[in-house]
């Protein structure tokens, strides 16, 4: 279970995260909020790409803060990015195999996760893949080699409805199939409400709500800060 305690990030005088404390339960949890709320910054701190000024990040009681990003990845923390990071000069299959090589997996496992996400073991290069295929290749890399925690940063961005549904179906399966906890950041609230059992909401670097998805979506402060009048339930 991912636990964040009193986490503060300071860039000069700006605090993208201000004493954020939250525990994410098992399964798929959502992290939502308006642009600039601190969602990606929180992912960056958890995955080691940003250092906090104060606070603690633990998974099952183990602190992650002393580890470099690649060490966290090898430990079992997987991450995707808003700007997908598929290697253009390699095929989809080789993109996943390369990650398997670094993360302690093997070629068979790489093929299995590609089958899971439904991307044929294509020889097309990353630069020749569609946006959905690139997102799926990233998802395949994220579930490689016994992940413990999977952070998905706006995996649905730029996808059409049918593609988002396909993605949602896959994300839902990750906890049971791979034994990993999933945290999802996305602005597509249909995707978020479809796959997340619990939500945490950030606004201007502060945690303003946390709870089950239905509770949070009905929260008046969350509506004021982020959702507006959007009806999701």
């Amino acid at each position, binding site marked *: 279970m991912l636990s964040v305690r009193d986490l503060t990030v300071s860039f000069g005088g700006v605090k993208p995260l201000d004493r954020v404390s939250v525990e994410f339960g098992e399964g798929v949890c959502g992290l939502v909020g308006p642009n600039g709320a601190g969602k990606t910054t929180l992912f960056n701190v958890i995955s080691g790409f940003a250092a906090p000024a104060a606070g603690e990040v633990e998974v099952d009681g183990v602190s992650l803060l002393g580890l470099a990003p690649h060490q966290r990845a090898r430990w079992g923390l997987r991450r995707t990015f808003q700007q997908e990071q598929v290697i253009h000069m390699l095929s989809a299959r080789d993109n996943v195999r390369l*990650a398997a*090589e670094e993360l302690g997996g093997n070629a068979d496992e790489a093929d299995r996760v590609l089958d899971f996400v439904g991307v044929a073991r294509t020889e097309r290069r990353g630069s020749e893949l569609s946006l959905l295929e690139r997102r799926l290749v990233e998802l395949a890399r994220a579930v490689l080699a016994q992940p413990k925690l999977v952070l998905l940063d706006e995996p649905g961005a730029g996808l059409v409805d049918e593609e988002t549904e396909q993605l949602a179906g896959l994300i839902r399966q990750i906890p049971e199939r791979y034994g990993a906890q999933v945290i999802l950041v996305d602005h597509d609230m249909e995707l978020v409400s479809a796959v997340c059992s619990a939500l945490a909401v950030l606004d201007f670097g502060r945690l303003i709500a946390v709870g089950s998805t239905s509770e949070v979506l009905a929260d008046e402060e969350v509506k004021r800060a982020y959702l507006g009048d959007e009806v999701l339930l």
Partner: protein
Amino acid sequence: MGTIAARLPRTRPSAATLLGAGLLVAVALALPALLSPFWLRAFTTSAIFAIACAGVGLLYGRLGVASLGQIALVGVGGWITLRLGHATSVPFLVLLLIAGGGTCVIGVLVGLPALRLSGLNLAIVTLMFAAAFAVVFNATGFPDGGDGFLGRATGSEQRLALERPALGESDAAYFRYVLIVTALMFGLIAAHLRARPGRQWAAIRQSEVGALAAGVDTTRSKLLALVLASFTTGVAGGLLAANAGVLDPGNFGPQESVILFAVVLIGGAFSLLGAVLAGLLLEAFPSLLSDLGVEGNLIFVVFGLGLIHAISTAPEGIAGQLQGLLAGRRRREGHEGDA
């Protein structure tokens, strides 16, 4: 897992590679008999600088690291070879290894902090490094058989040239010796490109953040590239030192470093063929102009135009264009075969 490397562009052991190896053997055997001493020396130094160009290409083409200080590392390798060559009777091949190792130490000491930078900042820092070494080389000179740490002959002491290895005493023999060492250095680089380091470098060049998230220890991976580029460049310096037996500090300045980087861009930073072409551009092409009686400074105009061409229309350099032409021809032949 081995199939990944095979799909990395320009690392597949193709028919072209085998053809290249065959050409190398043919060149080594036939060229010395066909060339005048002037051209033999030009091609010898071309082969030596092709190694240095391969180091530049490795750092820039594979990692995106624009190092403008590589010529200084050639000088460091040359300095170590001259100093130990005059002071000891260590076999030349061992001298080359020591020169490569010593240059590694210097290259890593200077390069590792610089690797925390990127883009223009890195280029300027490495250029300043080249300038600093040029000052040191000019102040101390290269060893010429004297005593003391610097190995400089003073007063009435005779200035000595370093002897070539027994297997390469004549110009023709040394040309073959240099070709063999060049092939070994290229093989060393190619072996890394085809293995896990090459795949890590491909990931880092695409996105360092993405590589880290995929579990790549980017610092270690960059360090390995730096070690490899420094080692091979140091060996090139050792070969250069034994070529004429002496080195001129004036040949290791920042201007030479910039030109070295420019010819790598023109020849092609993404393949070893590009390094060969860059070596020829750097050393054989000026000889051609000189042979034709053309003003020597015209070479800068040619390099300038070549650089503009490479940046605007051929980012993979002449080598990329040649490989593109070959690939297009193979595709056309394939279509005709299908028809």
